[in-house]
């Protein structure tokens, strides 16, 4: 475990960001005929940028669990998706913690998450859960990810470099809140 000291401030910030994650994932989403675009990834990315991969991973898994407690998740619970949530957030921390939030880096991060987690692991879970139906679900997911990935890149870059947010938190050196 990386040395992040869990003082009251850190715990509070992560708790609130998980709450924001829940709201953005479950209550706000743009529903189009093909894809559902939600912004739950933004707080995850934020936790990654602030506290590093391990903490972000744990927070990601917690957000997944809390989503199930509160909203019943998206139907059938399967532990694999909690692991996916962990890894997705882990990568945000891995590539963006204490690093410059350049276009290249953000694109790399989203690319890795899309390929490894969304298309790799999640496909595996779908095959385990839905067996034959995965044949049809997987291609549609490929299309969804193709649409969502650029949006993620844009949004993360926007948030990470937003002057108003930068006045509240220090995103580069891993400290939490500016006093």
């Amino acid at each position: 475990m990386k040395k992040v000291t869990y003082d009251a401030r850190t715990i509070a910030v992560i708790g609130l960001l998980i709450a924001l994650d829940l709201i953005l994932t479950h209550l706000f989403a743009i529903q189009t005929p093909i894809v559902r675009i939600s912004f739950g990834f933004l707080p995850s990315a934020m936790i990654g940028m602030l506290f590093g991969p391990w903490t972000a991973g744990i927070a990601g898994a917690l957000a997944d669990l809390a989503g199930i407690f509160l909203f019943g998740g998206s139907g059938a619970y399967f532990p694999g998706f909690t692991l996916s949530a962990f890894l997705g957030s882990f990568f945000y921390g891995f590539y963006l913690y204490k690093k410059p939030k350049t276009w290249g880096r953000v694109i790399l991060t989203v690319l890795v998450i899309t390929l490894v987690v969304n298309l790799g692991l999640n496909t595996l879970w779908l095959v385990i859960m839905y067996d034959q139906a995965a044949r049809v679900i997987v291609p549609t997911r490929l299309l969804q990810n193709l649409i969502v990935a650029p949006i993620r890149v844009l949004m993360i870059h926007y948030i990470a470099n937003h002057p108003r947010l930068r006045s509240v938190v220090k995103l580069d050196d891993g400290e939490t809140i500016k006093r």
Partner: protein
Amino acid sequence: MDKLIFGRYIPGTSWIHRLDPRAKLLATMFFIIIIFLANNWQTYLLLLLFTLLAVKLTDIKFSFFINGVKPMIWLILFTVVLQVLFTSGGETYFQWGPIMVTSQGLLNGVFIFCRFVLIIFMSTLLTLTTMPLSLTDAIEYLLRPLTKLKVPVYEIALMLSIALRFVPTLMDETEKIMNAQRARGVDFGEGNIFQQMKAIVPLLIPLFVSSFNRAEELATAMEARGYQGGEGRTKYRQLHWQTSDTIVMLTFAVLTGALIFLRN
């Protein structure tokens, strides 16, 4: 976004409600694992009866459980249809290229359907009868061995509690910010995808800022009350393991035994 019909917990005093959250959480997770043991009609029937008994014991209207299945129903039916059409084996009733309807396929379709519905029923049962905060306590307890590996279990549980506690608060906050934007002429949920995105972006920054501000206030309040880390912290909600919880565990052991005995 309607005013807080929040979480799925339905207060009650049934036998299931009164069980220790640890027992319920363990049992539900265990159920999702052992359901993959079922592979013939005897085993599925057994699990079905077991689940219906559990549902009966909650004293919650059956329609709540059906509502849990509803959002998934198309995906489930779709899965079932594909399972039926692409499974070979047994007697063939119909064939057209790779598409066929066989006795094995039909049987598999029914099984997959049962598997889904049962998993959804059981997880619905858990969230309907257990408060989210109790579940957090249960998770904290069950993860406690990980403290040996230097995993900050107490802190993790506290983060989860804070998250659950602040979802309604942040929802109100969101509503306020949305109204503020509406007053300036923003239409939410209208127009094409780009217009919708453009409407949401100005919500995000204030939401983040307000989350950070609330966290700051909360941290100050925690420190003012002398919060200094997990170990040895006393609890407002105590968990009590009772005989009925042991009975649940034993029942699951018997159920698993029966499944192993009955499966092919």
